[in-house]
């Protein structure tokens, strides 16, 4: 009888120390980071998927300047060629490269939308307006996903630095802090859309 009780207590002790040291919560927080990164990536992909349609529609407009379009196409192919696996989220250089490629696509896209202002027949085109609407929605989703990713990173980074988790991490898990996905200044200007 006594030994059963001792065993039960030992059982709970084992689990409580394991969770008390943050082993589980660190894992959980890392999963949350990976999950929110996946969401962010799928929104970025969604934007990249809209670009060919947008370019095709704009191309139809009489003598639309070629350089703007070429810049968008190039930025898109560069942005889609750089992928960032969840394991690479702690790598500042890889993240900077990824961010730069995506930021470049953002800024060329907003330049394209500004240029369109000079083409009234294009602005009146229903197809173009629909695309612009979708692009706007996607940019908003990206910004929501980015905020959630950054919040998850903050929680994770804090959880591996907080005592006693910091000891668990340095002894057992050896996870590195994740990188934030900051918006660059150029990309911050969400395409201004006036109807």
């Amino acid at each position, binding site marked *: 009888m006594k030994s059963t009780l001792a065993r039960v207590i030992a059982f709970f002790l084992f689990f*409580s120390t394991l969770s008390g040291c943050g082993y589980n919560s660190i894992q959980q927080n890392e999963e949350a980071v990976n999950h929110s990164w996946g969401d962010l990536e799928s929104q970025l992909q969604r934007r990249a998927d809209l670009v060919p349609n947008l370019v095709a529609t704009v191309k139809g407009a009489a003598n639309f300047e070629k350089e703007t379009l070429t810049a968008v196409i190039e930025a898109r192919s560069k942005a889609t060629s750089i992928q960032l696996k969840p394991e690479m989220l702690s790598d500042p250089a890889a993240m900077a490269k990824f961010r730069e490629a995506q930021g470049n696509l953002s800024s060329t896209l907003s330049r394209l939308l500004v240029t369109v202002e000079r083409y009234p027949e294009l602005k009146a085109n229903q197809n173009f307006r629909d695309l612009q*609407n979708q692009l706007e929605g996607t940019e908003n*989703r990206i*910004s929501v996903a980015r905020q959630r990713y950054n919040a998850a990173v903050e929680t994770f980074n804090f959880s591996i630095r907080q005592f006693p988790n910091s000891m668990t991490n340095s002894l057992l898990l050896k996870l590195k802090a994740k990188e934030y996905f900051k918006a660059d200044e150029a990309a911050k200007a969400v395409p201004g859309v006036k109807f």
Partner: protein
Amino acid sequence: MAAILLVVILQFVTFSTVWAAIAVPALTGRINDNAAMISAPARVEMEAKLKQFEAAESNQIVILTVPSLQGDPIEDFSIRVAEAWKIGQKGSDNGVLLIVSRDDHKVRIEVGYGLEGKLTDLTAGRIVREEIVPAFKAGQFDEGFSRGVSAIIAATHGEYKAKPKADRNGEKPSMSLLVIIFAVIYLIYQFFRRFFWGGFGGGFFGGGGSSSNDDNFSGGGGGFGGGGSSGDW
């Protein structure tokens, strides 16, 4: 004295950084007309319509009007409200928030995850541009809200069915025992955890759901991801 002053200043500083953005208002019902834009008869009519729609299909549509956004982009404010109110049913994420800022002349439809398929950005954009904005431009706010609500209902109709009441109450009775067992284990575990890490890790349970005075209307736990569309008049 100086210490009190310091605390007050510190509080002010932290609060001003945290609350630089406009605060999320309380959810008081299906129609939260904080900017007094909707007349009483229109309000009653829309409330009945929304209530009936939720009863039939479980989709929750909520209206919020605010006097001003105080410089916030409507998209930022809107997602914060949606995250706080959790409109829509948990699991279905079928909530829609129609948000209007009176003095900024801005309107946005924020769409929950579960309705993004039917109420796409495009559809939401068209509802804003073609149903709401023309009426608002003419100064007919009741008309704009009413047409907007009807269009949102029409667009989201048929995506979900409300669960029958009896089903919802008697949901898997065998689960309850399991829940109690887990609760007991959890309490014991928390006790030991507190015992060893006295003070770490906050209270036993998280905050409960919110309720309100409009026949106990509250968000059902729906999630949002920034879908929808904005416009201005």
